[in-house]
């Protein structure tokens, strides 16, 4: 195989997984950079951006001072990039592709070529998204939610956003079908559904969410594209007057239709972001507590229930659009019911620690930190899921704090945990523990420094997406000074990622060499060589136990791999 077929247009799930992961990491850092620029504007509104302000050009930041249009572009693209090009490619494309076939004892994904196409769709979507910054009028600037009519009448960047989204959605659809078929068809002999590692379950449910939730958004994206390019009015009502000019459209459309279609995707999407992360955390906790996951079966049932419920809560994002009592009661109730499987999942992970023999290595630290951080994110969802408190908290920084706790110190910590955990499998070398801890502790502190004050700002009523951080309003006067602390924490968080970057590249070349199973783990991926060759396993895999047979009484070793018979 030539270089191109082996490393670029590869059909090996591991190479594609690494392609996804590296792409995801690059986009995560890109989305992070956009956010750091925004944080300057929030902390020091109207002051020239130091160092790089003059490079941004007169259409974005004349004299280094950021224009509100550019701020809105950064906001919309930060959200889009982080969700669709950062976390999803890394969590689903990266870990899913690399780990899932290994964990089920398969030689590859069911459709290797489809897998390759799925990655390249993502790549094209990413290039379109990044390129849109250089269009006249800049990138999309109507929020990652792209609410119509604002998005319908926005500059060209929005058209690019829609084209980009269509590629990203197509990528996810192809990927999700592949995961579903692979999980159902390619499990090793003896690997029944209730012997699957929890990570596989999480990816499996996630794939159904992607498969069922994304098509409505793809359709909605095409409709908005038609509104922008073909003169239709799917989301434009009659009688719009923009900047004193009557908008020459046929009208008769509904702006709320977009919101329903968007959130019908975007709420399940939240679970696409969180479930794979939970899967990773569950693997690492089982491994480093040296005992089976507590309540594995209830966790599996919970994750399935969560998947179903995530389709019937979407309108809790829309309480303030003028919802009646019946509808709001329905969506509040489903949202509250949602908290039950969520609490079960978190409880099982917490209780798994009881009676353990906990090893505090870097992956475990990130996985453990996930629990309380995700807990804060989940708990702060309660007041937002009830329509009455939502009157005060809707669209404030409280919401921003809530979902960032879920996705940043939640999901992203889990993803870091996964990188430290599976790095030895991918490279045959281990990452440095010292640099790992130097990465973990400052990240934990700075993450909270960025997001905790958002709740205080949210209580005070500061709206999100304000290009000056709220200083226009006197009711926000007491809490806008917090913006500086949050911004400095964000920049500190950037510095805290340096040990990770150094560690990543250094360990690839000169990390400590390890064997096939450095963590003494039970799941099947550790039975393959590190790194696994094309085709994965050098032995026949027949599974005879559940996924987490740690510290089984009567066994000499404290771990019993899934494919090895127990000692009599």
């Amino acid at each position, binding site marked *: 195989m030539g270089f191109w077929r082996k490393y670029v247009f590869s059909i090996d799930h591991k190479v594609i997984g690494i392609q996804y992961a590296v792409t995801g990491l690059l986009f995560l850092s890109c989305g992070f950079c956009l956010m750091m620029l925004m944080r300057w504007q929030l902390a020091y509104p109207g002051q020239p951006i130091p160092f790089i302000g003059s490079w941004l050009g007169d259409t974005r930041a004349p004299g280094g001072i950021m*224009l*509100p*249009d550019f701020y*809105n572009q950064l*906001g919309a693209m930060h959200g889009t990039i982080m969700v669709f090009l950062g976390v999803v490619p890394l969590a689903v494309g990266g870990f899913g592709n690399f780990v899932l076939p290994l964990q089920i004892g398969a030689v590859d994904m069911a459709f290797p070529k489809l897998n390759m196409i799925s990655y390249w769709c993502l790549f094209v979507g990413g290039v379109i998204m990044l390129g849109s910054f250089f269009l006249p009028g800049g990138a999309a600037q109507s929020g990652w939610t792209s*609410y119509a009519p*604002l998005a319908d009448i926005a500059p060209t960047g929005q058209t690019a956003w829609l084209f980009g989204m269509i590629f990203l959605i197509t990528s996810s659809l192809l990927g999700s079908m592949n995961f579903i078929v692979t999980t159902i068809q390619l499990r090793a002999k003896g690997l029944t559904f209730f012997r699957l590692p929890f990570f596989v379950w999480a990816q499996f449910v996630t794939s159904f969410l992607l498969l069922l939730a994304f098509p409505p958004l793809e359709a909605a994206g095409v409709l908005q594209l038609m509104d922008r390019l073909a003169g239709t009015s799917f989301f434009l009502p009659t*009688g*719009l*007057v*923009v*900047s*004193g000019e*009557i908008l020459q459209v046929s009208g008769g459309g509904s*702006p*709320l239709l977009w919101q329903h279609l968007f959130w019908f995707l975007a709420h399940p999407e939240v679970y696409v972001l969180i479930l794979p992360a939970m899967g990773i955390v569950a693997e690492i906790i089982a491994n480093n*507590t*040296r005992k089976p996951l*507590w309540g594995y079966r209830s966790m599996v049932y919970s994750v399935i229930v969560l998947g179903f419920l995530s389709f019937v809560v979407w309108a809790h994002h829309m309480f*303030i*659009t*003028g919802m009646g*009592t019946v509808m709001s009661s329905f969506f*509040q109730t489903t949202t*509250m019911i949602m*908290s*039950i499987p969520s*609490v079960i999942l*978190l*409880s099982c992970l*917490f209780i*798994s*620690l009881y*009676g*353990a*023999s906990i090893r*505090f290595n870097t992956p475990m630290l990130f996985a453990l930190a996930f629990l*309380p951080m995700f*807990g804060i994110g989940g*708990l*702060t969802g*309660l*007041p937002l899921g*009830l329509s*009455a*408190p939502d*009157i*005060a908290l809707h*669209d404030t920084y409280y919401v921003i704090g809530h979902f960032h706790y879920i996705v940043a110190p939640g999901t992203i910590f889990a993803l870091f945990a996964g990188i430290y955990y599976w790095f030895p499998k991918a490279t045959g070398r281990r990452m440095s523990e010292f640099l790992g801890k130097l990465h973990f502790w400052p990240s934990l502190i700075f993450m909270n420094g960025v997001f905790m004050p958002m709740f205080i700002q949210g209580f*005070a*009523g500061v*709206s999100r*997406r*304000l290009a000056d951080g709220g200083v*226009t*309003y006197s*009711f926000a006067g007491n809490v806008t000074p917090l913006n500086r602390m949050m911004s400095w924490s964000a920049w500190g968080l950037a510095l805290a990622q340096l040990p990770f970057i150094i560690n990543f590249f250094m360990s690839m070349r000169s990390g400590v060499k390890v064997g096939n199973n450095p963590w003494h783990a039970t799941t099947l991926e550790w039975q393959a060589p590190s790194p696994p060759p094309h085709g994965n396993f050098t032995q026949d895999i027949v599974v005879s136990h559940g996924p987490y047979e*740690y*510290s089984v*009484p009567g066994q000499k070793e404290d771990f019993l791999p899934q494919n090895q018979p127990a000692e009599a």
Partner: protein
Amino acid sequence: MMNLLPDAASAHAGGIDQIIVIVHWLMAILFVGWGAFFIYVLVRFRQGRNPRADYVGVKSKLSTWLEVAVAVVEAVILIGFAVPIWAERVDQRPPDEEATVVRVVAQQFAWNIWYPGADGVFGDQDIMLVDEETNPIGLVRSGNGADDITTINQMHLPVDKPAIVRISSKDVIHSFNLPQMRIKQDAIPGLQIPVWFVPTVTTAEMRTRKGDEDYNYEIACAQLCGNSHYSMRGFLTIDTPQEYQEWLDLEATYLSGGDEDDFWAE
């Protein structure tokens, strides 16, 4: 936590603040409870102290009961507080005759406040008449509309009387946010959506309470509506009934000064 929220100045604000506090108590109890357990197990079951893990772990059914307790508390909050508060907001709106009725037409980037005038009936709108300088809402200045009063970013309401605000938008989605009144409602083009509330503290009284001569209730936009979304700020003044009438009368005198083209020049 109450003092983290904006000042409360409407009849229903207390109820909303109360449910926020109750939910946060539930959250705090869960977080502190789990947190204490978490710290205990991390210390107690570290490898150094417990070299061999227990295959079974927790045997008690306590967590199941905890789960049930959480569900029950949530149900109580939902049925006892959340749904009734919402029902009051959307179903128990008083009839127009008993309230001060105002219309708000949002636009990039201002709030058009529209009063029906002495006849108590709103005039018609015709988008062909829209002129950003003289008639931003396209009001037909004849018939019912002859005495209508419109202002930009200045809303006045009398204290202790229900106010009904009918909210719409000319262009994109905005969100009409009165933080001190605990009111937030999206302004959606093509729809006219009412909200109602009873302001209970006049601006003057709040100024005395806060010891701040410049204190104002503000109207904020809570939904991204374009590049100047951040500066889409209006003011709400809560008057005594007498002050309110005086203000309306003063605004009405601007109408009789000349034809409508001179309206904004006054």
